[in-house]
């Protein structure tokens, strides 16, 4: 086994004291949280911002002619502006608040999709998509008669770009893929892929659930048409996500849900939708959650997304080195950069669940299962993988603890 202690230590990028949960014990051991790909922990700045909102400014937004409601509205719309700047959108009109990345992808499928996709149209996805970027298109295809095609994943966990080029020759109406695989850590060459898709006449939807928390992202440079992501994976609260869309596309789309706030005028039998972005936000929104997301975006910006990405790139290599030294352990996914700090692995003769359960007894939280990517599991002929993932609060000593515990678990089953 590799002597990891010989390598220089990597400190957390963010002060660990900012994250109260990290001082917790689990099964009598200090918590080692290595499941940020599923959901991140929250800094005090985020927790406190929401608490402050409920203690001081809570009211419904948009239509209140009193101070409290104006404060709440300013806080809510201020969060939208912060998110717009964070991903370099052109305008707040391009930022729709949703429940999570999943809802954002469904909104595109059920509004833009139903309005634009016809029988026989080709939709190109990839084999490494999360269920949230598969099932909405399956539903759309079932309703419209569109055809789904898939960019294959190579044995080392990359997208097969030659096959992608051939799929584009079929002039798909839509291309949807993830900017970072939540299983393999793969970061596809999105900018080129998007340019190629546009050249082939396709609209491009990016699943940013993993990329936005972990990489610098500029929607203008990327030039994607839609981008969906979740607050809870980027230090923010649960209950809110974001759908970015280019303004002209959003303007042309029918509304999604009907109700309060998304309307301009309602009569008994007809309505006119509101302006962007409210047209897509029906009912009382996740106000306190927007405030929390704003704090999360500020926190990440203060760390600097370039530094976040660099920190994780280092941790990824450390994790791959430490884990691959364990006999019988296989890394699933690319082993060299560019990749995210999410590492899937299997161990001969052990089910991933048993790995996770044994690690949990050492206080280490990793995920085991299909990671909402069953077709990718099928592609690799695996029922499941174990998956460890790092974030801004992760240190190299946590990675060392992980590797030691995995080695012990493996010995028990050997």
């Amino acid at each position, binding site marked *: 086994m590799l002597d990891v202690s010989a390598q220089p230590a990597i400190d957390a990028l963010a002060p660990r004291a900012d994250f109260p949960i990290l001082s917790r014990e689990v099964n009598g051991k200090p918590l080692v949280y290595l499941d940020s790909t599923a959901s991140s922990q929250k800094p005090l700045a985020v927790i406190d911002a929401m608490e402050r909102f409920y203690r001081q400014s809570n009211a419904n937004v948009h239509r209140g002619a009193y101070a409290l409601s104006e404060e709440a509205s300013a806080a809510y719309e201020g969060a939208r502006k912060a998110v717009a700047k964070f991903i370099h959108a*052109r305008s707040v009109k391009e930022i729709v608040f949703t429940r999570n990345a999943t809802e954002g992808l469904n909104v595109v499928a059920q509004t833009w999709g139903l309005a634009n996709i016809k029988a026989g149209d080709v939709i190109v996805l990839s084999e490494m998509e999360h269920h949230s970027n598969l099932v909405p298109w399956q539903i759309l295809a079932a309703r419209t008669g569109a055809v789904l095609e898939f960019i294959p994943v190579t044995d080392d966990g990359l997208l097969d770009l030659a096959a992608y080029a051939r799929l584009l020759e079929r002039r798909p109406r839509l291309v949807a893929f993830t900017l970072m695989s939540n299983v393999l850590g793969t970061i596809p060459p999105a900018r080129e892929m998007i340019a190629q898709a546009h050249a082939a006449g396709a609209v491009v939807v990016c699943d940013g659930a993993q990329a936005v928390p972990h990489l610098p992202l500029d929607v203008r440079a990327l030039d994607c048409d839609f981008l969906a992501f979740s607050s809870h994976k980027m230090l923010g609260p649960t209950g809110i996500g974001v759908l970015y869309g280019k303004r002209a596309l959003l303007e042309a789309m029918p509304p999604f849900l009907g109700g309060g706030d998304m309307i301009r005028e309602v009569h008994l039998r007809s309505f006119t939708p*509101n302006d962007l972005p409210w047209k897509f936000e029906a009912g009382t929104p996740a106000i306190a959650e927007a405030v929390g997301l704003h704090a999360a975006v500020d926190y990440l910006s203060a760390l600097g997304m370039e530094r976040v990405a660099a920190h994780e790139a280092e941790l990824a290599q450390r994790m791959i080195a430490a884990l691959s030294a364990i006999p019988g352990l296989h890394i699933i996914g690319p082993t060299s950069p560019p990749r995210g700090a999410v590492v899937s692995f299997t161990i001969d003769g052990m089910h991933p669940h048993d790995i996770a359960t044994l690690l949990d007894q050492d206080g280490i939280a990793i995920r085991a299962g299909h990671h909402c990517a069953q077709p990718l599991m099928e592609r690799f002929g695996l029922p499941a993988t174990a998956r460890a993932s790092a974030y801004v609060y992760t240190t190299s000593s946590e990675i060392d603890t992980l590797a030691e515990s995995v080695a012990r678990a493996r010995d028990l089953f050997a």
Partner: protein
Amino acid sequence: MDDLYREYILEHYKSPHNKGDIAHPDRFAAYANPFCGDRLQMGVRLEGDRVVEVRFNGTGCAISQASASMLTDEIQGKTLAELAEITKEDIFEMLGIPLSPARQKCALLAWEVLRKGILRLDEDTAEESDLA
């Protein structure tokens, strides 16, 4: 209290100038306040590109009615090009009262009808600055 509801605001509200309809307007537009749903309509008669008659109508709060009353006084006799020069800030200055964001929408309703409906200006580029 009297900060907002100054004497002259209440006067414009109770006895608005230029309120009513024009039988055959050259340009006409109606617009709802997205904040409250109140509708305000405006019609103008033109000679060349100069406004020779203007009327507004609709119900609304003291702020939106006083704003429409005062703005239509300004409009009268101006050319469309001159009217395009009127900014949000001009409206706030004209009213001369401190306005919260929500009440700013009321104050700007008549101005919005003027710009989008009467002057038919495409506001897209102007609104791009919402990230400032």
